């Protein structure tokens, strides 16, 4: 069997696994009956919106070569704008009491504009500078909402669930409706990002990721592409913010603080920084482990500490051993099986090496 055939088989295995995952997700409410009533609302819906947020991070990382740490702030901004726009009198913030769908459109539009602004600021730096700059923006956004009582203040804005569109109703009473909306939005985000990466813009962006100097000399406006990619990622992240607002009822600065920033990064890294599917794989792993640890009230023996120590160690091990995350382990694991049993190296034709893309830092000039 040649390497190409092997890769094709692997792709089919992945497709079947994806199909199984989709079937399991569509029939998600059965889980409520199997595992307990928390399943849809606490595990699956949270996985879906965290996955959408992580998709925006992974899109920038995989196709733009930029690891952004302010996607959490962007979904937080989206959620807070939604909260300010749709809630009525009696809540904190501006309580504009707009129609729910108007609020959604406004939240998405506003977040995209902020993304354009952040992108303009960050697009001239790359690599580690970009990481630090976006982290700084994220923490500043968190402080901004903590201080400015006009739009949020320390306790944030609550009461979003009383002002959802009639399609969703009250997510507390009918979690399945919000869940299916989240599922459709997640699928749409995935398809949209896949589509964008195949457009001329997406191809140019990948060129810029691999060699910005060459792309600039070919006439591409490198900072503009980066800025637009950032705004597009903000657009995707704003969906997560809207669903988060509906799901959590309250958006406050505590939900977009440094711990949340790191949580989203952990999700993206555990899944895979280089593949979009990793967003939901990582989100599910994160949410599920968190839920189990809290339910059983586990703590780390000898050292002390709970979930953050456990997930921190998992994160550290994955970064050290497999920069491609869980999906990277799957890819390198199957490659290893191929080399060991199916086609030993001396028989393999040239170029059958790893199909894992090199890590982003390897692509940096």
């Amino acid at each position, binding site marked *: 069997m040649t390497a190409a055939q092997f890769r094709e088989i692997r792709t089919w295995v992945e497709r079947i696994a994806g199909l199984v995952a989709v079937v399991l997700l569509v029939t998600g409410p059965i889980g409520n009956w199997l595992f307990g009533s928390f399943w849809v609302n606490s595990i699956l819906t949270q996985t879906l919106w965290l996955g959408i947020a992580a998709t925006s991070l992974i899109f920038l990382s995989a196709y733009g070569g930029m690891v952004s740490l302010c996607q959490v702030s962007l979904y937080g901004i989206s959620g807070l704008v939604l909260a300010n726009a749709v809630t009525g009198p009696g809540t904190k913030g501006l309580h504009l009491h707009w129609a729910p769908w108007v609020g959604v459109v406004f939240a998405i539009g506003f977040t995209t504009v902020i993304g354009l602004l952040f992108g303009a600021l960050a697009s001239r730096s790359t690599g580690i500078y970009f990481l630090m700059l976006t982290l700084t923006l994220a923490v*500043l956004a968190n402080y901004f909402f903590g201080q400015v009582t006009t739009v949020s203040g320390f306790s944030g804005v609550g009461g979003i669930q009383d002002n959802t569109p009639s399609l969703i109703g009250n997510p507390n009473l009918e979690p399945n409706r919000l869940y299916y909306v989240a599922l459709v939005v997640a699928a749409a985000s995935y398809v949209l990002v896949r589509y964008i990466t195949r457009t001329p813009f997406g191809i140019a962006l990948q060129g810029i990721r691999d060699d910005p100097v060459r792309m600039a000399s070919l006439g591409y406006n490198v900072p503009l592409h980066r800025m637009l990619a950032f705004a597009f990622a903000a657009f995707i992240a704003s969906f997560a913010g809207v669903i988060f607002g509906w799901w959590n009822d309250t958006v406050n600065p505590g939900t977009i603080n440094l711990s949340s920033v790191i949580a989203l990064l952990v999700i993206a890294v555990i899944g895979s920084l280089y593949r979009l599917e990793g967003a939901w794989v990582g989100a599910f792993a994160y949410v599920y482990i968190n839920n189990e640890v809290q339910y059983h009230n586990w703590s780390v023996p000898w050292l002390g*500490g*709970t979930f953050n120590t456990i997930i921190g160690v998992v994160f550290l091990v994955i970064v*050290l051993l497999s920069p491609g995350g869980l999906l990277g382990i799957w890819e390198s694991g199957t490659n290893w099986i191929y080399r060991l049993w199916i086609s030993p190296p001396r028989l393999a034709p040239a170029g059958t090496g790893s199909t894992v893309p090199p890590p982003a830092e*390897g692509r940096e000039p």
Partner: protein
Amino acid sequence: MVPTTTVAPRWQVPARSVLARRMPLTITLVAAVFAIVWVLFWGWKTNYGPAIDDPTDFLYTTLDSITFAGLLFIVASGFTLIFGLMRAVNMAHGSFYLMGGYIAYDVEQKLAGTGGGFGLTSSQVSWWQWVVPAIVASAAMAGIGLVMQQGFLRWTQGQDIRQALITIAVSLILADQMIAHWGGLEQNIAFPNFVGTDKFIVIGGISYAWSRIFILLVAIGIGVLLWGWLHRTRIGMVIRAGVDDRQMVSALGVNVQLVFALAFIVGAALAGFGGAMGGSFAGLAPEVDGQWLLNALVVVIIGGMGSLGGAAVGAILYAFVSDFSAAYLPTSSGNCCTEYSVIFTFGLLAFVLALRPLGLFGRPA
């Protein structure tokens, strides 16, 4: 005869006026001049009023900014030293700060007792009961920093994003461990009695806390020592050469790994010492680590990564902007506008990056 058409060469940049080309610089200068005029002469409806009407409060704000800049410099200099030499961003720097503070707190409690009903106060602490904990904290952080560098960073040299992720994982674990061991309540280290919080220096009718002057003097001392070490010793020379060209230094027969380890020890020790100092000044609590990571990041992004002078200038600029924007914004209409002070930090960052993407004193790697 070949028909000729005149086409403007595409490489020619269309002529713009000097002001338009220097747009970021112009805006920065206008903003700076406006800020100075505002604080000195205008100051409409601010807490203190313009400086010509209320020179005492202006002086206090200035002194507060300078002394806060001292503490910022201590922490940020360690961060910038590590980054300049190894191109490694130590995202655990804030955790080292907080952990250093907690260790100093524990050691001080061992040496000086737990004090009376209000905890340990400065009058119960002699000078060595503060200095020994600070040194122990620095040494402990130097040890942890060395373990992290040798264990994780040494063999991932050159993969800067991966190194940042590793240090983020370490900071995640450390933060959870610190909550497990020191709890969530705020702890305070007591300053030694000769600079205790009740000691004031009085010059010309103006009294000022000795503790803040002490911080400033120590920061200046550390700055002078670091400068002397980097510019007047052989190791310092090697480090400066390593900042410019690591491979060349290594080719000349210098054991670069040893120099890296040394720089990491000093950088982490400075974070630990900063924690002992800052814990005496502003207390220790969970989330302080993130706050100080942000402080260090803002200072070095403004000043330029890897530059000691840049860290000093960045610390002064950041301290002045954050203190003055908190004190000299109008407070007239209820909740306007003091709460918007964080925007000014953001603005400072944006201005500096628009002018110089690598920071004021930054140089390309």
